[in-house]
């Protein structure tokens, strides 16, 4: 991840009509709360931090993290993590799991996706270098989602076909990178 990647990623998302908000992991719940419509369902975010001093990333309380199928049907927004971001394309990698990340990201009008800056890679080959071993070792199912679902089959380009109409990326800035930037600025 470099600064150039982050700015490329944000520029690509902007061109795709995807809103990006960013902040430190401690602001995660607040950023999600601002981005999510109502009612909202979600999949609990795994805390990948090795350092217990870091803030725990979390969803705001109003997000239903153990939804029924009926909750999913009724939901306006689905909140999930992304495992990876691909800067050159503005893509986020959503991994299917037993908790329902795939349906929560799919059967809703707005998908709010949480991505750690550290998980941003420059380009598509990097993404497949990451994916290859995981498919062989863990049989993962990953969708690289780029902007909202879309169709051109109805006589014009329409955003929002079978999948979400809107995508919002919450980018969690790496505290360490933020520190370095400050150093670089001095």
């Amino acid at each position, binding site marked *: 991840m470099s600064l150039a990647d982050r700015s490329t990623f944000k520029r690509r998302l902007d061109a795709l009509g995807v809103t990006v908000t960013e902040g430190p992991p401690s602001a995660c719940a607040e950023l999600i709360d601002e981005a999510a419509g109502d009612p909202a369902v979600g999949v609990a975010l795994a805390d990948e931090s090795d350092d217990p001093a870091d803030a725990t990333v979390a969803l705001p309380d109003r997000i239903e993290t153990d939804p029924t199928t009926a909750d999913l049907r009724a939901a306006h927004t689905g909140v999930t993590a992304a495992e990876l971001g691909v800067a050159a394309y503005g893509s986020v990698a959503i991994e299917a799991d037993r908790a329902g990340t795939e349906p929560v990201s799919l059967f809703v009008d707005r998908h709010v996706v949480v991505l750690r800056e550290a998980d941003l890679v420059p380009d598509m080959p990097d993404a497949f270098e990451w994916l290859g071993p995981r498919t*062989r070792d863990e049989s993962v199912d990953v969708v690289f989602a780029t902007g909202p679902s879309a169709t051109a089959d109805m006589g014009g380009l329409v955003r929002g076909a079978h*999948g979400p109409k809107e995508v919002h990326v919450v980018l969690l800035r790496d505290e360490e990178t933020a520190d370095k930037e400050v150093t670089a600025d001095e």
Partner: protein
Amino acid sequence: MSSDAAKADRIRELMATEGDSVAANTRGFNEGRIESTGRLADYEELKDEARAIKEDAIGRLPELIDEVRESVEANGGTVYLADDAADANRYITELTAEERDADRLVKSKSMTSEEIEVNEALAEAGVEVVETDLGEWVLQLADEAPSHIVAPAIHKSREGISELFAERFDLDDPPETAEELTVFARERLGDLIEDADVGMTGANFIAADSGTMLLVTSEGNARKTVTATDTHVAVAGVEKLVPTVEDFSPFVELIGRSGTGQDVTSYISTLTPPVDSPVPDFADDERPLADDSDGDASADPDRDFHLVLIDNGRMAMRDDEELKETLYCIRCSACSNACGNFQSVGGHAFGGETYSGGIATGWEAGIEGIDVAAEFNDLCTGCSRCVPACPVGIDIPWINTVVRDRVNRGEVDSRQTDWLFEELVPDEEPAGLDLGTRVVGNYETVAKLGSLTAPIANRLADASPLRALAERVTGIDRRRDLPEFASEPLVDWFERRGGAAVPADEASREAVLYPDTATNYVDVDRGKAAVRALEALGVHVRIPDLPGSGRPPLSQGMVSTARAAAEDAYAGLAPHVDAGRDVVVIEPSDLAMFRSEYERLLPERSFERLADASYDAMEYCFGLLENGGDPAALRAPAEGTGPVASGERVAYHPHCQARTIGVGEHATAVMERLGYDVRVSETECCGMAGSFGYKTDYYELSMDVGEPLREQFGDTARTVVASGTSCGEQLDALLGSSPMHPVELIAPRE
């Protein structure tokens, strides 16, 4: 190529009913491709990488099939290798109708499933099939076939879809805007997906190492199809296998850009099924969505996955040296979108049972048989604009040529005795080949005779009763002006003038100006202009009497005749190449033979020697100027204002094959260097494409393909220049004035 009135009528009807919609969409996709691939810094490297992966994969396909079987079974899925469509359909219907007792199967878009006609097989077994791709659903409701392999309903207008919905669902106030139509379809299909029992997808690529399949989609229906159902059936041709997941990367970067001009589509699903998502229980929806009952992170135990790999002629294609390349096709649709004829008629005319566009000739010949390919193969004119567009570098015109050759040989009718023609023409083709094909294929002989007997031949050729007769016998449309033969060929003129004006010992370079058939017998003036331009730049020019390149017979699929011509032309040129002379060619379609098609017709070393020594006339002038040639020796635009200066503004249409071999832009550069203001056409091919536009079956189509040129150049006061003879004829027909070759513009006056 003799007239097939029914086919011609069908093409006219499609141009009238679907042509506008298809043209707007495909031209949009094509422009998008050019822009999107233009943003890739390493586009050519990615194409080479993609090509290498496909060559490797198809080369060891049996091994990959074994490997994917192991991978998928280790993941808990099943692989079935189906010999043909019936075998695949039997497996799928038994699984769906009997084992699963399914009422409904939902499908995402898959051309392979259309190839095997699995919908019909399932319906017979009592299973309702619902296409969930919005375009495919529209076609299912309308009971129509796709007109494009990626965007299946491009032939339908928004109004047409609205009317269709109103009729099918009995709506008084049907949705009208694209948004309304999409919402309506999404809601209808959403309910149908929720209650479905089985989900069927295709696969764009499958990695043998992990059993991971890649799906390129935008709507999200494939994701829903897989997630909402507990049984996933993926149908894919065996050629979709690649060795590893890492191999997906270049294809992901290329497929959307090459097809519809999207850098990447909304969703690139990489599934290693059975997938890990819980199966939402839409019937008992108060149950929690998440399923961690067994505390396991792997696939949901309720899920079942079947990969149905289809042979259906593919392994035989793999053994067919000429058709094998078809298996590299990733079905991106670039060849359809870049094709002038496809843009005008779409896949309902330019297509077979399942596939459409230039590459469809290979698919349909391999899967359905040569007779199906023969029905639309004529529509590939060999303009070659699909070649640089193809992300895996398939020589699509060559596949069409080979299939045409096989059609020619298969169509031999021994009862037909054209002994007269047999005596007259020196071709290597079987007796009984239709006369139109032969007239075009032996154009060099026709031109030679025409030149010998001009002006009588020209007068006779224009006499209307004879044109009517010729149209009936040869299929050459009487609305076309026929080439007028010159009484003194270029070679004879050059000899009469005393040969080279610049002696060899005073020359900067020595060149052979190749007397291509069109320049030698028809458009001698551009040959004379080329001599003046080259000599003005200090070149010692020779014009030996040399045979034709073999382009006309190759365009008719007469491969043996073309090969014999290539050998003769090479034999004539080889001593000059050995003597260090450059070979300068005026007619781009002949230069493209030397630089491209001869690779298929001559030994590799012969091809390379001639290709390396050959230049387009304007490319050569460009090179001479770059190497110190004096631009003042050439003709700059006239000074002054008013009509005198009008020659400064030029409209230039580069020849299709010149663009493909990379010599389309040298003329622009030379003209601009001399001070001309050049506007270059954006049209891939003028539509004449050698002899194509002369054929009476295709006259209207050819004129329609040229329409964008009329739109761009029609009301310009610019001087129109074009390098191809047939482009010149077409521009004359479209614009009402005959263009000159760029070398005639820049050559010093006589």
